[in-house]
């Protein structure tokens, strides 16, 4: 899995690509999120457009990221999951704890409100 970090209108965006198995690559996500939380950049969107698949451990890592942010009063939103990934989020009911948006634009707008 690859992670690219960028910023749009003060919102941190992480573009993930590949498969989220929950190996060392995924721990990098935890580190990046911790760093953002420390810098008090508390609006984060994780863009899943290029994520093909998520394992259970990968889901755990997304939840860890969300938990880390929640502790600092921050928000993590997900956007653009493909049908397969959205299905996984729904089966595991994690769509109930994450706000999931079809597009990045909609996720950004939700943070501005």
């Amino acid at each position: 899995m690859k992670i690219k970090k960028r910023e749009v209108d003060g919102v941190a965006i992480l573009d993930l690509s590949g498969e989220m198995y929950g190996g060392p690559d995924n721990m990098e996500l935890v580190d990046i999120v911790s760093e953002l939380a420390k810098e008090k950049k508390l609006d984060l969107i994780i863009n899943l457009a290029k994520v093909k698949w998520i394992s259970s451990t990968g889901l755990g890592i997304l939840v860890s990221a969300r938990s880390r942010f929640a502790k600092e009063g921050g928000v993590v939103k997900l956007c653009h999951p493909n049908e397969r990934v959205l299905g996984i989020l729904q089966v595991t009911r994690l769509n109930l704890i994450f706000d999931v948006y079809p597009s990045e634009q909609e996720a950004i707008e939700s943070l501005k409100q």
Partner: protein
Amino acid sequence: MLTIADREEGGVVILDLSGQIDGGPDSEKIQNTIKKNLAKGKKSYILNMHEVRWLNSLGAGVMIASYASAKREDASLKLVSVTERVTTVLKTCGLIPEVFEVYESIEDAIKSFS
């Protein structure tokens, strides 16, 4: 440090956890134990949290990973006897009440499966 003992009661696999869930290698044993039992076709799981003193965000991730492994096999995982401190963390993470069902006693949780 986390210790895990697993047992079975009325067809339900019960994991008695003791210590702290901090996302380290110990914590992964939770998911591994569940996966092992999923492979045997077991569908009902209880995490007995009575002796869990502390949990961090990585630990919450491990619990979700276990929960997700179960869900994917059409199995369910419920929590029992969660201390106040751990409840606060799980609520902050948004995992209670949205994701995990929590019961006061193992008997109540076992009944909930039937």
